[in-house]
């Protein structure tokens, strides 16, 4: 009877295990294996190079690390500016304000749009030659013509512009998760605090912030994963890597996969390295938050 039960349990697990293995585990092992070869992605012959591809990524590939740096910069802006904005808006919508359902819908529109579409829309909004040049027009109307720039073709501004558009696109996710988190905080806690004489700031600091830490960690991990992997938005907005100024890891992987003498094995090694870096960052974030708690 016990054996029958055990067998039955395994049968229930089997479909999920099979799907997970076929679509996740086996491809991961396969990609790692390909990362050990020099291969153009077409030939039947692959040259085994051991860990050379990984060595090249970590020790020689300047473009790769520049792309990591750029993605890190975008992520840093998303972690700070985007998430603070998302939190503040969620906090506002959690309170009794007029039309809060309308705001919830509006804030959730950007995340559901395609990244390419968002990139192209903002390209049109920002670009001064082919587009509406709205930012420069606003600056001129505000009497700040000295701040006018070629936002998308000036190496000094292009990455920050990309990061801000990325924040615009992404803050809705954070908003939704923060709002859901805020709604789980029992109202009685705020009422008790008010009875005890706490003002709004003290309630926020002593109740809202501590109880929102697990949610904030979740949002931070999702922001890191989403921002580090962003690339379609950049293609829509800038059209490519712009002399390395808008290079990001996924664009480097794509660059390795295509073009003359494409390096499929190297692209696989880049993908594995990038995945491992993201796992380590997420793990560190999780550990850090545990310590904080």
């Amino acid at each position, binding site marked *: 009877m016990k054996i029958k039960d055990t067998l039955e349990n395994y049968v229930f697990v089997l479909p999920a295990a099979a799907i997970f293995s076929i679509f996740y585990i086996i491809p991961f092992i396969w990609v790692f294996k390909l990362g050990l070869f020099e291969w153009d992605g077409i030939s039947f012959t692959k040259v085994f190079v051991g860990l050379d591809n990984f060595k090249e990524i970590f020790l020689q590939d300047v473009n790769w690390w520049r792309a990591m740096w750029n993605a890190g910069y975008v992520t840093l802006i998303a972690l700070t500016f985007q998430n603070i904005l998302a939190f503040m808006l969620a906090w506002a919508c959690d309170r009794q304000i007029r039309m809060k359902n309308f705001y919830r819908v509006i804030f959730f529109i950007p995340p559901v749009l395609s990244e390419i579409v968002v990139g192209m829309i903002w390209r049109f909004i920002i670009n001064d030659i082919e587009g509406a040049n709205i930012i420069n027009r606003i600056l001129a109307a505000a009497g700040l013509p000295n701040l006018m720039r070629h936002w998308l073709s000036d190496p000094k501004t292009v990455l920050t512009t990309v990061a801000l558009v990325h924040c615009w696109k992404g803050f809705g996710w954070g908003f939704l998760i923060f709002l859901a988190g805020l709604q789980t905080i029992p109202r009685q806690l705020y009422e008790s605090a008010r009875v005890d004489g706490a003002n709004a700031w003290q309630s926020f600091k002593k109740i809202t912030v501590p109880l929102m830490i697990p949610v904030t960690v979740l949002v931070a991990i999702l922001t890191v994963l989403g921002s580090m992997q962003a690339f379609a938005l950049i293609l829509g907005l800038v059209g*490519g890597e712009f002399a390395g100024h808008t290079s990001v890891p996924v664009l480097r992987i794509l660059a390795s996969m295509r073009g003359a003498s494409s390096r499929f094995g190297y692209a696989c090694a880049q993908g594995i390295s990038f995945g491992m870096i993201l796992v380590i960052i997420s793990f560190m974030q999780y550990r850090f938050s545990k310590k904080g708690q």
Partner: protein
Amino acid sequence: MLFKSVLLGGCVLFSVLGCSSQKIDSKPTINIWHWMTDRDPAFQELAKKYETLTGVKVNFELYAPSDAYAQKIRAAAQGINLPDVFGILGQKQDFVSFIKAGHILDLTPYMEASNNSWKNSFFPKALTVNEFGPQNSYGINPGIFGVPIDIMTIQMVYNKKLFTQLGLNPNRPPKTLSEFLDTGAKIRSAGLEGLVSGWGEIWMIDCLASNYAFNIMGKDKVLATIKGEVPYTDPDWVRVFTIFKQMKDSGVLARGLVTMINKTAEQLFANEKAVFAFNGSWCANVYQGMNPGLEYGAMLPPQASDKFPMAIWGGAGSSFVVNARSQRREEAVKFLIWLTDQDQQAYLSAATNNLPANKNSLSKIPAILAQFARGMDYATHPNAWGVSEFSLVIEALDYGIQSIIIGEKTPEQVAEEVQKIKERELAKKRKN
């Protein structure tokens, strides 16, 4: 309970494993994959005509954009699941990889049958990109492996109306680099944009750079550089990089050029906001669609030196290859012979505004296409050089030129950086 579980598991496995299906069709069918959105309606029309004539069904399947198509072909090659006929996007090295993997049929016997009748119907330069000569550096047996369905040249175009507005002669575009650079000040003061192109997508940068390299140092020295015998720090290469700085300084380049995609460049030129564009002959079709009244002419990139002739990229625009593993390869070859015959080529040219690959179909093409066709006399193509530059070197060159245009690096710095990568890649090649 156990029975239900087994049944459920079985259903899942069945649904996962049983997704593929094979169509059974009584008529012989040739499957062709392509990426040419603009040519798809004409292809479908020709397929219908061929079916009426021969009873053979031709199934053109469009996969766009071209990047997605290129990845699909690559994935199909890995799974040995290629269609009967397909096109390869990329450079000669990609073509070589497909041939070496046994995916592509050698078409030489068909080309040379009946006194070379099929071969002779094409522009010789259209065939060059699909051809491998004796003792080629790729290690491929000599032969012709692809069929050009149209030809192209990549040149400059200029807006005649804006030329008149700027006080320039619309029938005499600039012939020398200094004449070209002189137009920069006039363009800027008129509030127009100068040269537009898809330089955000980078490959068009090395196209123009190699045009000037041929003009300044000649073909032999360019090929010697690719072979690693001449460094990119050579004064002639620094001169090539300097041309881009001169263009930038003169104001002849459009603002935001380094992040411009070709579609945007085409819009700006078609909407008469830009005076010059660097584009392929396919642009005739694009401009026709965007602004049928546009008055423009084609011109060679203005010469920087009179030491060597100016060269432009040209040759086969799009080519089809036959899957060597296809069971219908004979039917596929017959269809391609029919597709590249004079009448079908004339139809394709008229319907899509592309230059026909069949030289006998040239007689009735529009004037602007005839101008592009004349550029074939100056045409060359990396796929016909017999040697290929490392992709990382090309990337460094393109990014370097972008950096020169945005004023971030000097031509000398770029030359040194490109050479450094070249040396690293050569060392790696020697090691392997």
